[in-house]
Every structure is written in structure tokens, then in C-alpha cells.
């Protein structure tokens, strides 16, 4: 632990020997392509497959009517809503799946797709979530009996009356309307699968891009059990995954159609979506309209916050939150600050946009929450004319006050926010920058400094509150140590680049003393790995990492018994140091872990089970609360609105660090996925429901040129309830970076009366804001 071991998985990736889903080729494999709707909202009048079926190589065209015969045309979402697999009557968003073409080659399938003729009767779509709630809006989900409007759910937390009272009596109240735009993970590998149904043995092997293979197996069994595909007949294999970030958690219609076709045809079926399909139809993230308010004293003490959210979920609620949390962990929006009063509410609505609300390297709405609190805190500082660093320092929850109970009901495990911000300020020379800024302002130049001091909430989660479709959110590890002292370990999670093969091996090495080089880590095969809920929401280290340590400790207990037997002493007389047990006071009398394991197979005590393996299902007692202090410096060209991120320092507290190199890599990557929505990315729709930037030509994923040279560092406050004190890190930077950047830009523009700009903050938005204020 704490060692920057080079990654074990890299050998195959740098040599082109990674094994991704599109690399799979099976004998007799068919290819599937999907006909998609050009309209956002339309009735399907007719689907004519005749010409398509004449295309050489085309085997079949599958429509919703075909699936309806098997009751497979609808499926449940993870949020207990319903989603079409293929439509029978109506399409609800542009690029929705309308029919599938099956052919003997990829090219023939595409030819067939072009030849399918669909007749639509377009209708006027509902694209604005506010208009969706108006009484004259059409009821989009008329498939639901009794549904009379487009409202999905209402959620609230906190003390509404007390909050209203504090606001009414406060010296200072600030308010901003914020939009956290709809964005897309755009992992470089798109989604896809090979569904391989074996008719003879009634067995399905499903190779697919999934971050949660075990949960997916259960979902498939729930959807297809009635046609004989019960859970023991299903094997889900998640091969190497080319980036996930939450976009590979949901079950997409393409997967289900591929399974249905393989089941009916009895041949393997490959479906690989192209990038445009991926951007236009797969789950989006965010799309929260937030009204944020803060009440405080004129000296700068935060007294209360109030947040009202309108969530645009598209045509179905296909988010991937724990069941009891329709807004995910949005209630972390009270942030890193010590005050006792808050109220939050959210309403979700249907529109004619693709479904989702899942993820973008943060699935549980923490990014939205952190953006709201960090922006409104800066707004407060601006209002009373106080330095935002000083204001934060004065309002932080103090390190001696942990565990700290938040006004929305969370118990923060640990943190040292003052140390984090101080470290970031020292690293970037905060006071020097403020001096420079004052000089520049005097000359009319625009320079901004933005701070974000966020608290994350990850590691879902304790079984008391956390489940997905009823399955508790534990995770698992199984360790088998072979007679020669080398091990294989399997997990319920699934790496998509996080480096589990290395990190988990390091945890076990630390606990058992077997070198990490000799611990092989496997994930992603439901036939071999223990059940777990998968990798997303920064949960792998908090849950499966903990399970690895706990399983290893079970083995260490067994090792102690064997060592006592071999050394003919009592267990109490032994002491452990990594790799061996020795007799207290007689260190020359010892047994290495390798000798002990060998004995477990060759010379184990009578009455003890032979072998050396253990499994642990870890149910975390609490969530973990990583935190960070980020500072960003921007220079803005007044004439063009061009924004240059000059420096960005990120100090993270993710508890004990297992592999500093991997943690730093996660922070770098997350920061680039933070600058992306802050300055570049947004899925834009017009009123007719057309997506205006549904390809990588116009959806701006940052390149190495847009991405600044990140500067990173750490403060360590171990999680007191995690076996190795770790907290998880993957999403912190994506959560923390956008408000730091937005705060820096607004700080630069604040002399001209600009108090807020919605992300992505583009040069045009900056230029227009300056123009509107008469600054240029």
C-alpha cells in the first residue's frame, strides 16, 4: 500500500492485446444494425421491411410488433419506470430504436438498415421541462393507465418551515438560477454486445459492455425468465471495457434485441453501436435546472440553504440511482460548511429527449449538488464583499467535529477541509494571485481565481438504505491461494480502466504478505466471480476493496491457526508481520505465508478444513466522504471572450491511498472530465426535437490542447469505518472542477456586475455577458 506499483493490466493494452467486445468473433455470428427515428415524437404508421429483406445477406428485420408476441417490447428501467425495447406505435425521441436488421455481415446489416422504409406521422414534441408541466402540454406517457400529466416524482428533504424562517430573518439572501446541462460520457469505446444463445443447452452467454455484470444477469433473468432464460442459464461476460463513466450501467434496447434475436435464430448476434448512435440515444447525464438560495449574516456566516430542482429525464426515468434516492445523493448539497438548516426539493418530468439521468463520472447527482453549493457560496462572498477563501475557511466543518451530521441526514465520516484549502492556497500562491488580479483589474484586464471546496459522498452503500431493484449494494471478493502460495482473487466489480487488477492485488498483498505480482485479479464473468453490484459511483475501493481486505483477514486468521500448529505454540504466542508469523520473543521461530499455505494443502491440522480460500461480502456501515480543495486561475481576453486556464491545483482527500500513481491518474482524468462540461460539452436540442451536436465533430470532447497541465496533491484523513481507511476517488475531480472553473470565470467578470454564467461557459457567453453589461 502507498506504493506506485506499475499496472499489471498494461502489458496487454500497450501491445494491442486488450480484449474488447468488438474483438469477439464467433462461428456463424450475425450482425445487427438499428433503424432509428428521425423524429422526436411521432406515430409509426407503417414499417416496410420488404426491400430490406431483399438486400443480400439480410436475414431478418425485427420490429416492436415481433417482440410484442413474446412480451419483450417493453422492459423495466432501474428506477422501476418502463422503457420501450422497440416501439409498436409511437417514438418518443430522435434516434430512438425503431427496428433491427440482422445480417451476415456488418455492411449488409447497414445496407438493410438503409432499405427499411418507415412511415411516420410527426407530432409536436415537448422539449422544455418547464413547458412539460403546463396543463396544455400533451401527456407523453399515455401508455400508462390514468397518467394525466408529465410529472414523474416529487422528492424533498430537510426542514421546509425552519428554512423559510431563517431566510425571512437573514441579513443577506442570495439567489441564482442555474442549469447543469445535459451531457454525455462519450467513452472512447461505444456500447455493444455479442449475444450467444445455445439452443441445445438452453444457455445464453452475453458478452457486453457492462459495468455491473451480475446485476445485469439478474435483470436479464427478470425480463426473459418467462421464455425459459432463468438465471442459471445466463452467463454475462464483461470483457475489457474501453471506458464506462456510468454510461455502461444501463440496459439499452440494443442489448435486449440482440438477446431476443439470438434466442429466436439460434446464432450469435453482434451489435456495436456507432458513435453518433451512442451520443444521440444512450443515457445522458445531468439536465438539472436548479434554483439555489443561501441565507447568511453580513459578516459571512452561512445560516441556511434552499435548493429547488427541475429534473428533465427524457421520456422515461432510466436513471441508475439506488431505489430510495430518486435524486441520488443530491442532498449532499449542504457541502463542506457547518450550518444546521437546509431544505431541498426536486420534481422530475418527462420530455421528448432520450432517457437516462445516469452518469458522467458521477452518477448520483453529486456534481449537480456541488455545483449549486459552491456557486451560491461564491455568490454570497461576492454579495458581502468577502474573499471567498476566507469565507470558506470561516464556515468549514472543523476536523474535530467529525463524524458530522448534516442537516439533510448524512453522517460525514472524516475530513480536514481547512488543511486542504490551505495546502491548495499555498501551492498556487493565492495571496500573490489576488495581488496580481488587483493590478490587472486596475488596467482593465480580466483575470479570475475560482475555488471549490467540495465534499463527495460515495461508496454506496449500507444495505439499510441502499439497493438497486431490491438488491442490496454490498460488494464482494473471493481469494483462493494455491498450494505454492500464489493467488487468484475475483470480485463483483468491473474495472473500465480504474486499474483494479493492480489496486486489489496491492490490498491483498498488504493484508497477506503475498507479493502483488503473484495475485491475479479477475472480474466480469458471472460464472466465476462472486455476486456484486459493479463499478460506478466511486464504489469499488469503498466496497470491493474493503471486501478484499476482509477476505484476506479471514485467511490470516486461518494462517495463524496453521502456524500455531506447525510451530507447536498457542495462537496467542504468535505475532504477524506482513508475510510471516513468528513466535513472540523468538523471532527465529517463524513460518512464512507460503509455508503456511503449503501446509493448508499438505499438512493441515486435524479437524480443520483443507485448502486456503475465503470469500467476503462487504456491507459498508456508512458511506465515505472524500473531499477536495480546488483552485483555478483563468485569464480572459476581453475582446473575444476567450478563456485560458492558466493554472489548476487540485488537493484531494480520498483517505488512505493504495497506489498514488493510479489515484493521481484518476484525478487527472476526472479533472479533464470536469473542464469538459464547464467549458465545452452540452447536448443541444432544437424546439423540433433535433439534436444539434450528435457527433464527435460538434460535441466537444477536450483534446490534449484544451486540457490544462493539472497540478495535484493530497491531504489524508482516513475513513474511520473502512477496513483500510480508503474513501474512493474516481469522481471527486469531475465533481469538484466545474464550480472551480465557473467561479474563476465569474470572478474575472464580477467587476462588471456579472454574478453567474451557466456552464458550459464558452467564449461567446463571456463576450455576450460583457457586451450586455456595456463592458465592451
Amino acid at each position, binding site marked *: 500500500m502507498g506504493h506506485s506499483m506499475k499496472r499489471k493490466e*498494461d502489458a496487454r493494452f500497450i501491445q494491442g492485446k486488450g480484449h474488447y467486445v468488438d474483438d469477439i468473433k464467433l462461428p456463424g455470428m450475425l450482425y445487427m444494425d438499428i433503424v432509428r427515428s428521425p423524429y422526436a415524437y411521432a406515430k409509426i404508421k407503417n414499417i416496410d421491411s420488404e426491400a430490406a429483406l431483399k438486400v443480400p445477406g439480410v436475414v431478418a428485420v425485427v420490429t416492436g410488433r415481433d417482440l410484442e408476441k413474446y412480451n419483450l417490447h417493453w422492459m423495466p428501467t432501474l428506477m422501476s419506470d418502463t422503457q420501450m425495447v422497440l416501439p409498436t406505435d409511437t417514438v418518443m425521441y430522435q434516434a430512438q430504436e425503431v427496428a433491427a436488421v440482422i445480417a451476415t455481415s456488418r455492411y449488409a446489416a447497414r445496407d438493410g438498415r438503409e432499405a427499411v422504409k418507415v412511415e411516420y406521422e410527426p407530432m409536436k414534441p415537448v422539449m422544455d421541462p418547464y413547458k412539460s408541466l403546463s396543463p396544455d402540454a400533451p401527456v407523453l406517457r399515455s401508455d400508462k393507465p390514468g397518467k394525466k400529466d408529465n410529472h414523474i416524482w416529487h422528492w424533498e428533504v430537510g426542514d421546509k418551515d425552519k428554512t423559510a424562517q431563517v431566510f425571512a430573518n437573514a441579513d443577506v439572501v442570495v439567489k441564482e438560477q442555474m442549469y447543469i446541462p445535459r451531457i454525455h460520457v462519450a467513452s472512447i469505446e461505444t456500447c455493444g454486445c455479442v449475444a450467444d444463445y445455445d439452443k441445445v443447452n438452453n444457455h445464453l452467454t452475453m458478452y457486453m459492455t457492462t459495468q455491473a455484470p451480475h446485476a445485469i444477469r439478474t435483470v436479464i433473468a427478470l425480463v426473459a425468465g418467462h421464455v425459459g432464460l432463468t438465471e442459471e442459464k445466463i452467463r454475462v461476460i464483461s470483457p475489457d471495457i*474501453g*471506458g464506462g463513466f456510468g454510461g455502461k450501467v444501463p440496459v439499452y434496447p440494443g442489448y435486449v434485441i440482440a438477446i431476443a434475436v439470438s434466442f429466436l435464430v439460434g446464432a450469435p448476434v453482434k451489435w456495436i453501436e456507432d458513435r453518433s448512435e451512442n451520443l444521440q440515444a444512450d443515457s445522458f447525464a445531468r439536465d438539472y435546472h436548479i434554483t439555489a438560495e443561501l441565507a447568511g449574516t453580513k459578516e459571512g456566516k452561512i445560516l441556511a440553504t434552499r435548493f429547488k430542482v427541475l429534473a428533465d429525464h427524457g421520456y422515461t426515468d432510466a436513471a441508475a440511482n439506488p431505489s430510495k434516492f430518486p435524486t441520488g445523493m443530491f442532498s449532499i448539497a449542504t457541502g463542506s460548511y457547518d450550518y444546521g438548516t437546509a431544505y431541498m426539493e426536486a420534481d422530475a418530468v418527462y420530455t421528448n429527449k432520450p432517457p437516462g439521468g445516469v452518469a458522467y463520472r458521477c452518477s448520483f447527482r453529486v456534481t449537480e449538488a456541488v455545483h449549486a453549493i459552491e456557486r451560491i457560496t461564491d455568490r454570497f462572498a461576492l454579495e458581502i464583499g468577502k474573499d471567498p477563501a476566507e469565507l470558506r475557511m470561516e464556515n468549514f466543518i472543523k476536523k474535530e467535529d467529525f463524524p458530522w451530521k448534516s442537516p439533510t441526514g448524512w453522517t460525514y465520516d472524516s475530513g480536514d477541509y481547512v488543511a486542504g484549502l490551505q495546502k491548495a492556497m499555498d501551492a498556487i500562491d493565492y495571496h500573490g494571485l489576488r495581488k496580481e488580479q488587483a493590478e490587472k483589474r486596475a488596467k482593465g484586464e480580466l483575470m479570475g481565481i475560482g475555488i471549490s471546496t467540495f465534499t463527495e459522498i460515495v461508496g454506496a452503500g449500507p444495505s439499510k438504505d441502499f439497493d438497486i431493484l431490491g438488491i442490496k449494494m454490498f460488494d464482494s471478493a473471493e481469494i483462493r491461494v494455491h498450494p505454492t502460495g500464489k493467488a487468484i482473487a475475483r470480485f463483483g466489480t468491473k474495472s473500465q480502466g480504474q486499474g483494479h487488477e493492480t489496486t486489489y492485488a496491492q490490498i491483498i498483498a498488504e493484508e497477506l504478505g503475498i507479493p502483488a505480482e503473484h495475485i491475479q485479479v479477475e472480474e466480469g464473468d458471472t460464472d466465476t466471480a462472486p455476486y456484486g453490484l459493479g463499478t460506478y459511483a466511486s464504489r469499488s475501493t469503498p466496497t470491493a476493496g474493503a471486501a478484499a481486505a476482509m477476505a484476506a483477514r479471514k485467511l490470516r486468521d486461518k494462517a495463524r491457526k496453521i502456524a500455531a500448529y506447525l510451530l507447536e505454540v498457542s495462537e496467542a504466542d504468535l505475532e504477524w508481520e506482513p508475510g510471516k508469523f513468528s513466535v513472540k520473543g523468538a523471532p527465529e521461530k517463524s513460518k512464512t505465508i507460503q509455508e503456511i499455505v503449503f501446509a493448508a494443502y499438505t499438512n493441515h491440522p486435524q479437524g480443520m478444513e483443507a485448502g486456503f480460500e475465503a470469500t467476503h461480502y462487504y456491507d459498508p456501515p456508512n458511506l465515505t466522504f472524500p473531499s477536495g480543495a480546488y483552485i483555478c486561475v483563468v485569464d480572459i481576453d476581453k475582446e473575444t471572450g476567450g478563456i485560458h486556464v492558466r493554472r489548476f491545483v487540485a488537493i484531494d482527500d480520498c483517505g488512505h491511498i493504495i497506489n498514488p500513481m493510479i489515484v493521481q491518474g484518476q484525478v487527472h482524468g476526472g479533472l479533464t472530465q470536469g473542464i469538459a462540461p464547464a467549458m465545452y460539452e452540452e447536448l443541444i436540442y432544437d424546439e423540433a426535437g433535433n439534436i444539434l451536436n450528435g457527433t464527435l465533430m460538434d460535441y466537444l470532447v477536450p*483534446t490534449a490542447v484544451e486540457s490544462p497541465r493539472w497540478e495535484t496533491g493530497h491531504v489524508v484523513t482516513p475513513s474511520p469505518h473502512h477496513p483500510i481507511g480508503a474513501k474512493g476517488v474516481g469522481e471527486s475531480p469531475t465533481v469538484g472542477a466545474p464550480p472551480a472553473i465557473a467561479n474563476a470565470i465569474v470572478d474575472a467578470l464580477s467587476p462588471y456586475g456579472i454574478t453567474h454564467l451557466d456552464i458550459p461557459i464558452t467564449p461567446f457567453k463571456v463576450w455576450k455577458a460583457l457586451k450586455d453589461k456595456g463592458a465592451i
Partner: protein
Amino acid sequence: MLKQITVTVNGAQHTAEVEPRLLLVHLIREVLNLTGTHIGCDTSSCGACTILLDGKSVKSCTMLAVQANGKSITTIEGMIQDGQLHPLQEGFKENHALHCGFCTPGMIMRASELLANNPNPTEEEIRWGISGNLCRCTGYNNIVKAIEYAGAKMRGEETASTEPQFV
């Protein structure tokens, strides 16, 4: 309808009968079964399919296989020589310049032409040089470091420490 083409891939000659519309990346992946070259988009934006064509980096989704007739192709599988990793492959591993690995082959192929043309690039030249290749995982810091490492190694200089630097 089918056209016969001959290409040299990683030093070995291959002859294939292909549809004129077959993309070069599909020839490489599906006809020659060299799956290290990846496909990440449909607009020539991401660079996951980058290979060397007669020494020049090319997005192989943007070319037809027939256009490669008579030419020499190097893919990621051809970078290892006599069991020795190419300095870029070593640099990527040593500097943690990959997470999921999907963009890595294209990134390495692009960087190999960059270093061939400019053996000692500045950070800015590296960043612009790989700006046709997208990576969603790493934030690029370590990719830049890996290319600097490989450049130093190929120039016969000492390579800098690969340990992570913290403020």
C-alpha cells in the same frame, strides 16, 4: 465487384479480395484479425484507429482498404521488435499514460510519427501533435509525459523519473 489488393502489414505481405467500399480499419480488424486497432467514432474525430501507412499516421477509418493497395502498414501489434517493447509502449506503461487502454494503440501510433518528425518536441508541440486523438480517461498529463520519456529514450538520453509528482 471484389477487388484484389496486396498490403504489407507489420512486415508480412497479405493479399485479400475486398469490396471497394471496405474501410481500411475493417480490413485490419476483421479480415486480418489485428484487433489492436480500435474504432471509437464515425467522423474521423477520435483517432482510436490510427495506424502508420508508409510511415505516416493515418486514421484508418477514413481510408478505403483499396487505397492502401501496395502500401506498407504498421499497427500497434507491429511495434514490439524482437520481444522488446517500443520506447513509447514502455513510456506509456511507466508513466501511467493509459487507463482503459482503448485509445492507447492509436495514441502510440500517432506519437510514433510525431517523434519521427520531431525527436525532441516541447510540451506544446506534443499536445498539438496528439490533438487528433481523444482520450477520455487520463486527462493527457501522463500521455505527454510518456511521449517525453520515449523521446528521451530514443535520443539515447536519461529518462526522467516516472514517479508521480505532487504539489
